[in-house]
């Protein structure tokens, strides 16, 4: 009986389907103070004063807090790469020391300045209107390239310029590669600013526990342990005084794998007032104040020989991180590393920079640098293929790593400092599987069915580092009734951890999965943790749970042997517990629980409750290929996605239904980013995508059914033989759809170079292309 590998129905579903999920906004009760934030209306300005007296006097208002009340707390950076990587990649980064509430200056529209606490959200919002902020406007810095110029205003005065981070890495002889090329293509690619936009906005509730003197914080977050670390770093409170836990979280996608000033401010507000305080973000706030993602420009140069084989690959990229990013190291390093792609590349030179601008903060968004890198490389390959008269599939076949190449070392260290080695099986075979998902006959049929549309096909490949460290922790315990409780540092936001981690634990314990209950995301349940992001939870949290369950089973066996007074080796495990080999003598898990209880023979033994920490040797790589069929309406420029397929090379699927769901959901977000979604700003720095009427999300009619083909490849980098999959559906969607549009329009040259591929961009591109009909008539 194994639970791993079965599409077990999800534990989470019953309560969600009944409307009984417990989300952050559902926690507040009578007596809870409601918080509302006053936010900057200016992109860049000095603040001379914040006049709060009138607001504080409004009936129903308890307090108004500004930066001074918070002791000028700042939000600490969340990641720094390993020293070996820093050295090898000439990596440098700067800490913008982001304040929780603005101190003396604002750097983007939406930045929190003050916090009102009142008996209701309505009253708190009324009070916001009574606060006067005296601003002196500064010149807004909106273009990341200009931000790095000598005369650009500096956003963070403690830094000498607007450089947030830089990186440079290389291998092979790039100049020689370019010199020997049959074709060199050079182009600039842009990926627009967009983000996770979870359907549930952010939210935080904090409550001082007057009995224990501790502070309890609930937050709609993917990383409760890092939120605790940040609250304590900002306030100086000891870590054991603060508990951070997550309720049900309505999607995260990286937006909630960030620590926000609002989380720290609400914690401090609860401490100050001695009251329970809740802040529930609304959508208007979310679109300007929750972290954005992407927003990169790549200047790319690819050289290939006459057969299309890559000779040299060069890319210089620039990331607009807005007023700052706690994840700048991750984003910049991910982008640089993933530019190496799933191909044989003999010479590689990448330089990247990140710049501060007067836009909203940036965090990781599903893929975090991988989609941007993939877009530059895949678009360059398509461009080169066109120049050589090769099909997109053919140029990829000539470069993809095969079973003969793999495992394949890339002469660069990963962010953890370990030399990169792709531990895949056969990337070229994965492409072939992908192409089979949409047979040519199907495309012909679609063309006949939709004479009103120009129809094209695109294909794109990616490889992604998954399951990154540094570690994750897990814990498995035998409950007093003889069942099992599992906890980890990985908080779920829809990934189904209550189900998958129970499956992992059940197998390691050898028990039926219905006896295991898993929950995550509480710093009181496991003291250390990293969180859920970067396709890491199945690998890291799964492995930690596996180790903890294995330890629990070994200790239980020893205790059972003691009860029977036999050597432990004589005991065999069975679903209910242990049996003495060749006899009917048993000690069940329920017996053990009873013997461990007061009055039992094991009452003096420590409980069966085992923690474990899993630290992977390095990342494990998931490769995949996407195929997209798009129909372009030549009148309107609208792009319809008609068919979509993803083949990926992953590891063991803990729950195949959930893996499938991760890929399909990832594709939907990729389609959104490729075709619809963009955070836009006016040329004075005002956000112009402040509602869902302007920031467009893909709906039921924009996302087609997605065919998924899973190929298994073993990895020895974790005990479960699993690979991460959370980002696989998103990464290659952008270039696959771009090529589908190029193909539909018969575009020559570089074709689509920017996302989102909006109707106006499509129509502009179509104008450059001789009409299909004319071509056909010729």
């Amino acid at each position: 009986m194994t639970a791993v590998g079965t599409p077990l129905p999800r534990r989470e579903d019953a309560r969600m389907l009944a409307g009984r999920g417990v989300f952050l906004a559902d926690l507040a009760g009578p007596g809870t103070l409601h918080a509302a934030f006053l936010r900057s209306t200016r992109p860049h300005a000095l603040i001379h004063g914040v006049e709060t007296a009138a607001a504080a006097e409004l009936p129903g208002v308890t307090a108004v807090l500004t930066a001074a009340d918070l002791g000028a707390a700042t939000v600490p950076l969340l990641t720094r790469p390993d020293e070996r990587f820093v050295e090898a990649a000439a990596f440098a980064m700067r800490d913008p020391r982001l304040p929780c509430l603005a101190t003396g200056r604002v750097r983007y529209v939406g930045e929190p300045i003050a916090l009102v606490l009142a008996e209701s959200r309505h009253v708190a919002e009324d009070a916001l209107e009574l606060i006067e902020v005296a601003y002196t406007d500064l010149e807004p810095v909106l273009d990341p390239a200009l931000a790095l110029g000598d005369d650009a205003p500096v956003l963070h005065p403690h830094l000498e310029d607007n450089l947030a981070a830089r990186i440079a890495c290389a291998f092979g002889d790039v100049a020689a590669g370019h010199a020997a090329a049959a074709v060199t293509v050079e182009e600039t690619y842009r990926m627009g600013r967009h983000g996770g936009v979870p359907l549930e906005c952010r939210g935080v509730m904090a409550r001082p526990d007057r009995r224990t003197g501790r502070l309890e914080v609930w937050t709609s977050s993917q990383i409760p342990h890092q939120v605790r670390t940040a609250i304590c770093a900002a306030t100086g409170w000891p870590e054991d005084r603060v508990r951070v836990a997550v309720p049900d979280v309505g999607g995260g996608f990286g937006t909630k794998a960030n620590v926000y000033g609002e989380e720290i401010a609400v914690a401090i507000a609860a401490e100050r007032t001695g009251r329970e305080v809740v802040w529930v973000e609304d959508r208007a706030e979310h679109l300007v104040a929750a972290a954005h993602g992407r927003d990169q420009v790549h200047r790319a140069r690819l050289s290939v020989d006459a057969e299309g084989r890559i000779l040299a690959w060069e890319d210089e990229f620039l990331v607009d991180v807005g007023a700052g990013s706690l994840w700048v190291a991750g984003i910049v390093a991910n982008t640089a590393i993933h530019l190496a792609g799933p191909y044989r590349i003999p010479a590689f030179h990448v330089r990247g920079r990140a710049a501060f601008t007067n836009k909203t903060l940036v965090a990781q968004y599903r893929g975090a640098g991988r989609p941007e890198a993939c877009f530059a490389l895949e678009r360059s390959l398509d461009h080169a293929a066109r120049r050589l008269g090769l099909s997109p599939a053919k140029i990829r076949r000539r470069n993809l790593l095969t079973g003969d190449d793999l495992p394949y070392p890339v002469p660069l260290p990963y962010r953890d400092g370990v030399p990169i080695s792709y531990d895949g099986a056969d990337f070229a075979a994965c492409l072939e599987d992908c192409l089979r998902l949409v047979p040519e006959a199907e495309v012909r049929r679609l063309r006949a069915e939709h004479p009103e549309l120009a129809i094209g096909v695109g294909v794109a490949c990616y490889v992604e580092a998954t399951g990154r460290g540094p570690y994750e922790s897990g814990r498995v315990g035998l409950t007093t009734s003889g069942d099992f409780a599992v906890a980890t540092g990985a908080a779920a936001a829809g990934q189904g951890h209550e189900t998958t981690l129970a499956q992992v634990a059940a197998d390691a314990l050898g028990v039926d999965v219905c006896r295991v209950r898993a929950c995550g995301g509480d710093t009181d349940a496991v003291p250390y943790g990293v969180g859920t992001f970067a396709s890491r939870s199945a690998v890291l949290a799964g492995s930690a749970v596996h180790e903890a369950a294995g330890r629990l089973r070994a200790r239980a066996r020893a205790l059972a042997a003691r009860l029977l007074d036999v050597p432990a080796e004589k005991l065999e495990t069975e679903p209910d517990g242990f049996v003495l080999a060749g006899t009917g003598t048993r000690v069940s898990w329920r017996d053990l629980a009873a013997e461990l209880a007061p009055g039992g023979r094991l009452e003096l033994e420590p409980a069966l409750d085992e923690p474990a920490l899993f630290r992977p040797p390095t990342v494990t790589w998931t490769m995949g290929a996407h195929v997209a069929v798009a129909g372009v309406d030549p009148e309107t420029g609208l792009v319809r996605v008609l068919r979509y397929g993803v083949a990926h090379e992953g590891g063991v699927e803990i729950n195949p239904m959930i893996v499938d769901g991760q890929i399909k959901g990832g594709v939907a977000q990729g389609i959104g980013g490729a075709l619809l979604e963009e955070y836009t700003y006016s040329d004075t720095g005002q956000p112009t995508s402040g509602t869902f009427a302007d920031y467009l999300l893909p709906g039921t009619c924009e996302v087609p059914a997605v065919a998924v083909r899973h190929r298994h490849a073993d990895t020895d980098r974790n005990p479960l033989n699993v690979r991460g999959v959370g980002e696989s559906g998103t990464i290659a969607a952008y270039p696959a759809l771009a090529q589908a549009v190029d193909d539909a329009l018969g575009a020559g040259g570089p074709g689509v170079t920017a996302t989102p591929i909006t109707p106006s961009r499509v129509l502009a591109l179509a104008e450059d292309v001789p009409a299909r009909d004319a071509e056909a008539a010729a």
Partner: protein
Amino acid sequence: MSDVRVALRVNGRAVEATVPARLGLADFLRDRLGLTGTHLGCEHGVCGACTVLLDGIAVRACLMFAAQAEGGDLWTIEGLHADGRIADLQEAMARHHGLQCGFCTPGFLVTAAELLAEGGRPSEQEVREALSGNVCRCTGYQGIVSAVLETARHRADRGDGPRDGEGAGRSLPAG
């Protein structure tokens, strides 16, 4: 600011309350009646997370004042769940993996309940169009669409016609 009195039926029971005139229907359901299954995803009528049935018609609770529901027969996800009329749809949603984080789920179930109550055998395109006012950020929709299609098919196979007071309500005057 003036208070108003509202009387309506919520999930089959009579409810009377005095509420501020500006109190939104979603806030009324969530904060006053504790019916937190009605979610708020955008508060301006785009995402569908707040969808409830009012006199058989799917409406957006974020766009209405509580006072506008006066005299109505209102059903939220909690009531639809408790009375068992969408048990088949809920089961199909789980089987087709039509939910991940679950935040959009009540809104989809309520919208689909309206569609299913009309009876018949909607095509995939019809189902997609009927659900096009609801946003799901997690699933890519296929599981939701499959669950609704399958439920409609099973109901039609069993010979379930339109149900009184639901789909039929489309032709009744609202309120």
